């Protein structure tokens, strides 16, 4: 039976890699330190696989066949798909057995994710791995949640998906140690008239709810307030999925600051796991 050895979340944005210097030097040092600490903690997990929960920014998926959830079961994933992203072209190793297991268990448990045997992953998955310096040989399983084009899965359903993933991972016998990294959010806008605004009140409220034990209040907050926090804040769905995996043990916020010049509220956090 696998142990979930760490559940983490971090914001992602292409600006992190393309134009890090847009923010003040002190801020850059702090946010880089936050991601470095994330990297140290992930490394300390000695995970044999990392479930990376992110979204596809209209690269692999389009309106002809737009999945609410998709799970990858490939041997590897080319990345990044964005020609303009300042990152090495490389292949993230996959764990096809764990990916296939999660799809099959999802179908048994009343979830309907799409299966993907071929994804070229985008900055959503890649940038936090890059910034945190995550070991390039640890296999990943991508879980993709639609946050970029309505109709979107509900906040509640994303939390429930996490509950399922947690149960399925804990009885998986293929590896002993699994980590989880959710990426995206917090408040930001991409391609809207509000682009450049962040909403620190939303972000701090959301992080507080993740740290507390009241799932109903968490869902209510996310569902009602997300329209005040920007279309990029729809990506808190990934944090909710991670929360569903980790359970209500509390949240350790490694870093948070609203960084309008990076167009986003940037958070890095780790859940405290009940033992």
């Amino acid at each position, binding site marked *: 039976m696998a142990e979930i050895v760490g559940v983490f979340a971090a914001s992602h944005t292409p600006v992190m890699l393309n134009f890090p210097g847009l923010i003040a030097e002190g801020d850059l040092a702090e946010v880089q330190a936050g991601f470095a600490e994330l990297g140290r903690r992930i490394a300390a997990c000695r995970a044999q696989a990392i479930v990376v929960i992110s979204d596809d920014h209209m690269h692999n998926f389009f309106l002809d066949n737009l999945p609410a959830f998709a799970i990858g079961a490939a041997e590897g994933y080319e990345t990044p798909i964005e020609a303009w992203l300042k990152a090495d072209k490389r292949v993230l190793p996959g764990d096809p057995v764990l990916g296939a297991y999660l799809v099959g268990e999802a179908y048994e448990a009343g979830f309907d994710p799409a299966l993907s045997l071929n994804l070229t992953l985008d900055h959503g998955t890649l940038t936090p791995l890059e910034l945190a310096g995550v070991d390039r040989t640890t296999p990943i399983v991508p879980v993709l949640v639609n946050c970029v*084009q309505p109709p979107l899965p509900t906040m509640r359903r994303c939390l429930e998906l996490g509950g399922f993933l947690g149960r399925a991972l804990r009885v998986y016998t293929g590896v002993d140690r699994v980590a989880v990294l959710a990426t995206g959010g917090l408040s930001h*806008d991409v*391609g809207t008239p509000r682009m450049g605004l962040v909403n620190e009140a939303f972000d701090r409220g959301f992080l507080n709810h993740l740290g507390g034990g009241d799932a109903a209040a968490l869902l209510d907050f996310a569902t009602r307030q*997300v329209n005040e926090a920007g279309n990029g804040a729809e990506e808190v769905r990934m944090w909710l999925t991670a929360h569903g995996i980790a359970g209500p043990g509390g949240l350790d916020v490694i870093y948070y600051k609203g960084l309008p010049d990076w167009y986003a509220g940037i958070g890095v956090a780790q859940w405290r796991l009940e033992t």
Partner: protein
Amino acid sequence: MSRNWVQAIPSPEAYWINRVLYDTQHKPAEMARFDADPAAYCRDMPLTEAAKAHLAGPDIGQLYLAGANPYLLRAHCLHLRIPEADYLGALRAVAEDPAGG
């Protein structure tokens, strides 16, 4: 109250706008054809006349209001090398509340 999305689901017009944005970004031959003559590229697509004009312009604000996916539209503008200030200005010009609320 502010809203994150212009449309709850893409309208037929928005579908085809997004189809142009998606295909050109993900198929180099399509992008080359678009770049050579945007109006000609759009002519044979099942786009509304308004959408053809907005894409050929481009009129970023009107594309946004017509339901262009914000991620696809942003990447399109990056490809066109539209200066960031112009891009943001075009979006802000169509905001309901110019304060951004």
